């Protein structure tokens, strides 16, 4: 769609400011929608109580209900009814921007795509970004300004804050504090600076629960000053990851890294001349990166530091790795984990310089944070001052410290001592509950701002829609402090850049920046930092008794900010396939030693603090080490997330942010019910997933399609159908797939797939059209982890079609396996007969037909299914048709790559390719020519259109021998 979209990207400013637009928006989503004051249970919210027989008129012969058409009064120019517009903007995580193109239907944002021009996206996004569209419409978002819990107004808020500011002003601002997350927004930073200069005694604190604390501290230890490190996987032959999961969205730049790394692996698989990169990883918790690694060294997180120093000191057990690194000077990467100690970072920096990687595969720039400070110290200071009563006013921008501040700080007790507490946030959350003032924050699709990407590139954040719930942005609030209450966020952002970019060409510069979604030349230049100071020696194995506890942001809901997002809650976590829960991960052996097992609810006690959570035996987990995920145990997140899981922050201490030793567990009860989407962990006797080493592959290229799996062409008594027009097909490269689940959510967003809730998932009724199967291979202590995305195979001899009594699923002349919801009567026979089990059934009325605000999030090009009908992957037929129609109108054939399925578009690793098999030059046709290509269950003669490229590993021969 991008080429077409280009014509439509226009800045929204004049549109957003027109009165009509406001009228239209209000008309569509009245700000007064009292969604927020009828809580209702989560089940209810998810429409599991659906008793109505919806989708009226579906029988085809019933009378159409009366409908009205509501045209514009004055129509906005660039808007063509029925055509989507795309606007470039950016979403930030922990302050760092990912460029996105947001799709807007008649003024409704319905889908988020990656911005190909943006360095941190390259057209891809992660799952959370995909899910952000749902958060935009989340009826649980706070919708009114409250003062002490009572409805209040913006004006009153301005007055109150101004008063506090003026009072503080008498003392140069002493006692006035601002708490933000990590700030990369140049505009916001300058606004804050302006305020601080006006009130020198006022203080600005930053705290990001899952920010880059170690990276910053590590850089300071190594170089004496904060430095931003970027890795160039496209140039790396040997990668040693020190507990760094650089494929997970917790890692800034992960999308870019995934793309570069997988590109290298693919290249090596396609021609034997290019060398495949080799990836070693030392980690405690099975991660996406660990899944793709050629060698995975399992160790407690606390051991990683010793592993690292072993590398630099040339310890025997890591000789082979070090030799490998040495053999590729300037073509290796030693990458420290975001969640490892600063020390490990320092060692990594040292190694990279020693091995000559610095400046080649490892690049340094100035920090992207506007003010790179030790956030933990900053927060600690704030807490101390609050406790000492030195803080009179605290304005919290977007954070939720009451929920996620390190437990040892007792943030809440300190907070209570502050006279005036104001909170700006998307939700009236745990922190808002303890603040005098709460102001609804505008979603990033509703507000103007700017932010830097992981390597410094600036993007302007522009709104697609007026705040649905009257939200305000940080800029608006800071404008009050700087006495510019009348100035809008748009004014502030524009004014900032105008000041930076004086001259008459500003307008063009502004328009282009908005249009492209990236500000040309705003990326930081590379710099060569001073030589690394010798890293302090690593302490010998700490004799701490008890278990190690490792903290990680949750694979689906991250630090908990998006916990109320039902798509993310129901997204199976890549490693465990668990939904609607976090759990205490424990290794099989340790569990056996402690006599506990999956489903046991245990108290975890760590330095006097205690949380209770269910155990989950995780193959590949390090011995004597538990992994806890943040983001759960919310109490004021909303109807979706409240009371789901347990809050791991309650164990976290500012001293040991990511791992701590000396924990003990005691079983409280047994048999906790998890809701997982996959119950069988291994491939049993079958081989859906096929893998080999590069070496073996070159020896035996056909390994992926053994003789017994082939079926003779003349097996059927009937002749084959020949598809003479288009012949759609898909190829999925298992060698690239990182298992990040972004495709699952992209599919959910594109195809209006409902969520079903924990109880239903537990019954085995989840609805994802595109699931990612995870198989463990090898001994349970440290198995290989395989990820296999499974959409509908669109079999040419589709077993599902044969058994449908009403022809609700049949083949199109282009070989699509069509599923016609309105014809389906729900015998479910097709699902039984589908060997891939990719069909999903609406056992209840899952789709939410009631919650008004959610209707806005739906894709108008896809039917919303009702109770009792089957559904499944359609190869995004709505996209196929759109492109075909445009082609037809222009009287030209469809170009290869013009049709992009939602899963393909989002995939950071470019693992999914869709196209026309009748076009011999199409990318997909070429991929299917490869030796690695094999079809799942080919032996059944289903002739699947979706096929896989087998996974290849590149182990170090030396280690393989051992």
């Amino acid at each position: 769609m991008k080429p077409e979209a280009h014509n439509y990207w226009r800045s929204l400013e004049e549109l957003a400011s027109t009165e009509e637009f406001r009228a239209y928006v209000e008309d569509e989503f009245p700000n007064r929608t009292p969604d927020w004051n009828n809580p209702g249970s989560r089940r209810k919210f998810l429409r599991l109580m659906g008793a109505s027989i919806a989708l009226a008129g579906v029988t085809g012969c019933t009378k159409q209900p009366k409908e009205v058409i509501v045209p514009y009064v004055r129509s906005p120019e660039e808007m063509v009814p029925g055509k989507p517009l795309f606007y470039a903007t950016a979403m930030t995580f922990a302050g760092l921007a990912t460029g996105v193109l947001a799709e807007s239907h008649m003024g409704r944002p319905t889908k988020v795509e990656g911005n190909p021009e943006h360095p941190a996206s390259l057209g891809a996004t992660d799952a959370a970004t995909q899910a952000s569209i749902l958060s935009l419409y989340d009826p649980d978002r706070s919708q009114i300004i409250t003062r002490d819990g009572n409805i209040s107004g913006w004006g009153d808020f301005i007055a109150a804050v101004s008063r506090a500011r003026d009072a503080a002003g008498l003392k140069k601002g002493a006692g006035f504090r601002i708490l933000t997350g990590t700030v990369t927004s140049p505009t916001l930073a300058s606004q804050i600076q302006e305020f601080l200069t006006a009130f020198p005694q006022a203080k600005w604190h930053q705290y990001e629960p899952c920010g880059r604390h170690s990276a910053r501290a590590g850089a300071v230890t190594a170089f004496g000053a904060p430095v931003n490190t970027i890795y160039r996987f496209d140039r790396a032959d040997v990668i040693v990851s020190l507990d760094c999961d650089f494929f997970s969205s917790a890692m800034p730049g992960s999308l870019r890294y995934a793309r570069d790394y997988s590109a290298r692996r693919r290249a090596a698989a396609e021609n034997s001349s290019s060398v495949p990169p080799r990836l070693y990883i030392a980690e405690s918790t099975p991660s996406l990166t660990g899944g793709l690694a050629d060698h995975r060294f399992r160790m407690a997180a606390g051991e990683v530091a010793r592993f690292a120093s072993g590398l630099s000191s040339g310890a025997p057990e890591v000789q082979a790795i070090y030799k490998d690194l040495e053999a590729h000077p300037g073509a290796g990467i030693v990458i420290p984990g975001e969640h490892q100690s600063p020390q490990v970072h320092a060692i990594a920096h040292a190694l990279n310089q020693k091995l000559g990687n610095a400046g080649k595969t490892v690049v340094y720039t100035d920090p992207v944070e506007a003010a790179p400070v030790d956030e933990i110290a900053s927060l600690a200071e704030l807490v101390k001052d609050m406790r000492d009563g030195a803080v009179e006013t605290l304005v919290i921008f977007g954070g939720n410290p009451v929920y996620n501040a390190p437990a040892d700080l007792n943030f809440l007790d300190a907070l209570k001592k502050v006279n005036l507490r104001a909170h700006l946030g998307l939700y009236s959350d745990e922190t808002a509950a303890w603040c005098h003032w709460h102001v609804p924050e505008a979603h990033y699709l509703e507000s103007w701002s700017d932010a830097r990407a992981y390597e410094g590139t600036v993007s302007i954040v522009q709104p697609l829609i007026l705040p649905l719930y009257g939200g305000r942005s940080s800029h608006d609030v800071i404008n009050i402090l700087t006495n510019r209450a009348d100035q809008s966020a748009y004014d502030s952002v524009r004014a900032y850049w105008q000041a930076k970019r004086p001259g008459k060409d500003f307008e063009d510069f502004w328009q282009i920046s908005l249009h492209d979604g990236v500000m040309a030349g705003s990326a930081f230049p590379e710099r060569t930092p001073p030589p690394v100071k010798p890293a302090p020696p690593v302490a010998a194995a700490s004799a701490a008794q008890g278990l190690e506890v490792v903290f990680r942001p949750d694979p689906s809901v991250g630090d908990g900010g998006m916990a109320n997002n039902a798509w993310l809650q129901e997204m199976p976590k890549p490693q465990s396939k668990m939904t609607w829960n976090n759990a205490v991960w424990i290794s099989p052996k340790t569990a056996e030693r402690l006599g506990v097992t999956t489903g046991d609810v245990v108290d975890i006690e760590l330095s006097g603090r205690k949380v209770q959570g269910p155990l989950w035996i995780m193959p590949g987990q390090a011995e004597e080490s538990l992994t806890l995920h943040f983001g759960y145990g919310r109490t004021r997140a909303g109807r979706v997330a409240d009371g789901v899981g347990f809050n791991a922050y309650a164990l976290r201490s500012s001293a040991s942010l990511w791992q701590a030793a000396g924990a003990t567990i005691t079983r409280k009860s047994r048999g906790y019910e998890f809701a997982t989407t996959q119950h069988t962990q291994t491939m049993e006797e079958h081989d859906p997933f096929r893998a080999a080493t590069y070496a073996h592959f070159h020896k035996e290229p056909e390994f992926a399609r053994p003789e017994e799996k082939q079926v003779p062409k003349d097996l059927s008594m009937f002749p084959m159908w020949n598809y003479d027009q288009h012949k759609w097909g898909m190829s999925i490269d298992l060698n690239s797939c990182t298992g990040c689940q972004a495709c699952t959510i992209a599919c959910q967003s594109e195809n209006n797939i409902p969520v079903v809730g924990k109880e239903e998932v537990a019954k085995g009724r989840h609805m994802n059209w595109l699931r990612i199967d995870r198989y463990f291979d090898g001994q349970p202590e440290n198995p290989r982890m395989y990820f296999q995305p499974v959409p509908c195979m669109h079999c040419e001899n589709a077993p599902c079609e044969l058994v449908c009594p009403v022809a609700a699923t049949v083949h199109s002349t282009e070989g699509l396996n069509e599923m016609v919801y309105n014809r389906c009567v729900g015998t479910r026979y097709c699902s039984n007969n589908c060997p891939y089990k990719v069909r999903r059934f609406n056992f209840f009325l899952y789709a939410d037909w009631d919650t008004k605000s959610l209707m806005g999030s739906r894709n108008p090009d896809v039917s919303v299914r009702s109770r009792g009908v089957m559904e499944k992957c359609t190869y995004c037929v709505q996209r196929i048709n759109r492109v075909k129609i445009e082609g037809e109108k222009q009287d030209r054939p469809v170009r290869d790559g013009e049709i992009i399925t939602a899963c393909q578009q989002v995939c950071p690793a470019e693992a999914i390719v869709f196209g026309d098999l009748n076009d011999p030059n199409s990318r997909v046709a070429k991929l299917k020519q490869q030796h690695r290509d094999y079809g799942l269950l080919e032996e059944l003669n289903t002739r699947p259109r979706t096929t896989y490229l087998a996974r290849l590993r590149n182990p170090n021969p030396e280690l393989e021998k051992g």
Partner: protein
Amino acid sequence: MITPHDKSNKQGSLYGIMAEFDDPESLLEAARRARDEGYRAMDAYTPMPVEGLAEAIGFSSNWVQRLVLVAGLCGASGGFLLCWWMTVIAYPHVVAGRPLNSWPAYIPITFETMVLISCITAVVGMLTLNGLPQPYHPVFNVPRFEHASRDKFFLCIEASDSKFDPAATRQFLLDQNPQEVSDVAS
């Protein structure tokens, strides 16, 4: 024993004369005799089918099986054509890579329709040929006829018969030593 001739019965309003027997054998015997005597328009009434009785009264019909044969053929061809028409003419879909006319799949339906149509024809045909339903019939006028559905066997020579003569026929029947002979008012 013998009941006196009932005056009330007018010649014209006489349907026939009926004799009652105790067991199938004697009825059979009587029927044969009647036929030898030259009576044609007669019928026998029994509580259950009696072998050879139809032949005895000179009746045979094989319309039922003819009808059923035709019906079966129609049913079978109809069933197959329906399937063929639905998949090839009415709305051709590509289903599971099978050809439009995947005839082997149509056999079960073909068979079922064949059976259905023929069975319906068998029953409906039988009833129609028997002229049923016919709740009113002169023979029901005979007081003891209720035994025809229990344990007695009746032979009725009908007035329509050319050779029928009230007195003679009655006498003829009396000669077959029946339980009783009675006029059947029409």
